[in-house]
């Protein structure tokens, strides 16, 4: 049976792991390759690197991070942030990554998802969707006068600073149609707040697409991961600070998931 994945996410700025709240107040939390190896040893099913380095400060530092991590951590590696072309994706994959996640670039140029899926297969193409809940009772998008009665989420880009003018559910469906083989869904309301995943958002998307959905944003304790999978129908759960700060371990999260009857990959099944 397919295991539900537990994925630590490493936000990388100029080659160092950082973590802030809602993309601000960044603090240095260590070396990405070293952390990736540690998490792989502790049972992480995959590692996500999100490059949050400002464009003008990028000089291939992420490719070096991926190369170093892939030589030490023999688990799937996903890289997001800053990839805007088929050629850039090729460089990231050739450095040892398995998937590339597109966020702002996919919103700006949706056909990028198709071009990359055609070249590398849709399994290598992840569409990251940063979603912000719209206030209930408000018009759900500009020009639509009717107040929303059901929960609605809008897509935001540039680390949450800009509204994309897209409905998150519609964008999720379109991204899959265009070529995304997986969706990384982050609640911008919950990110960094440790108040739990937005389970409603996850379920709204997961019930409309057939590709795996990765839950992100707001993990506080093991019970949140259980809820994201059981109620949010996520195939994988992602978190950053609670792992980096050792508030919870991959093992304790997997133990809670297993206790709730969810399939997880046991740690240390075979020794090389």
């Amino acid at each position, binding site marked *: 049976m*397919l295991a539900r*994945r537990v994925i630590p996410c490493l936000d990388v700025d100029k080659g160092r792991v950082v973590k802030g709240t809602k993309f601000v107040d960044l603090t240095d939390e260590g070396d990405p390759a070293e952390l990736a190896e540690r998490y792989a040893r502790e049972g992480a*099913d995959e590692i996500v690197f999100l490059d949050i380095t400002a464009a003008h400060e990028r000089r291939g530092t992420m490719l070096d991070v991926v190369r170093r991590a892939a030589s030490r951590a023999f688990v799937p590696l996903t890289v997001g942030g800053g990839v805007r072309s088929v050629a850039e994706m090729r460089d990231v*994959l*050739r450095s*040892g990554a398995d998937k590339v996640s597109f966020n702002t670039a996919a919103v700006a140029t949706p056909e990028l998802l198709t071009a990359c899926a055609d070249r*590398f297969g849709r399994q290598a193409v992840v569409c990251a969707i940063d979603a912000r809940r719209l206030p209930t009772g408000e018009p759900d998008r500009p020009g639509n006068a009717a107040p929303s009665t059901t929960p609605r989420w809008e897509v935001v880009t540039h680390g949450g600073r800009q509204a994309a003018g897209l409905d998150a559910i519609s964008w999720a469906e379109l991204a899959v149609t265009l070529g995304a083989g997986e969706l990384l869904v982050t609640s911008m309301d919950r990110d960094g707040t440790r108040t739990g995943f937005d389970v409603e958002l996850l379920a709204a998307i997961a019930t409309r697409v057939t590709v795996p959905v990765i839950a992100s944003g707001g993990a506080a304790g093991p019970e949140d991961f259980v809820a994201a999978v059981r109620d949010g129908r996520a195939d994988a759960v992602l978190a950053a600070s609670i792992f980096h700060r050792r508030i919870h371990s991959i093992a304790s999260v997997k133990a809670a998931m297993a206790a709730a009857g969810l399939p997880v*990959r046991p740690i240390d099944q075979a020794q090389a």
Partner: protein
Amino acid sequence: MSGPVTVAVIDYGAANMVSIARALDAVGARVTVAEDASGLAGADALVVPGVGAAPPAMAHLAERGLSQPIVDWGRSGRPILGICLGYQILFERSDEGDAATLGLLPGRTVALSGAPTLPHIGWNSVEQVRPHALFEGVPAGTYFYFVHSYAPVPADEADVIARTTHGRPFVSAATHGSLYGLQFHPEKSSDAGLRVLVNFVGLVEACRAGRAA
């Protein structure tokens, strides 16, 4: 001959080539990268990586003049390990783009059926249907990492080593003579994956010793 076995990893543009080379290096093999037929010289075994779709993969192999040398290699009884798409193309045909593939193993590659999610991405348990040296030291039901939407259906049940279920069961590992195929990614399956690669290197060593004798 002695010393570490030399494994030539076929480089035809597959994205996971680098990771496979690193993992083989980590388990003690001498790794070379073969971009064309000349790259096979001196190798004890070939590894065919692959991710993505069958038709472009076959076209890339043909462009680099590698298709026939790989077939000749396999027919001569020397070891080949195919991984993911590299495993699928060891068979005769693929329904993905209705592509003719290498034809070293009887059978065809078909789309996964009844799967709750596609692509099949993630860690899934591999159920060994019979003991095989490739899985020595790997407990029954061990999880390996998969990323695919198609899987081969071997014509000969005797070639099946392991099955995995996603929707319906499919053949996740197969062998015939010195040909080995894995639908999962040992290079991304942590310690369990490295153990399978250790076992493959052991099989290559035994094959080399047998040929020298």
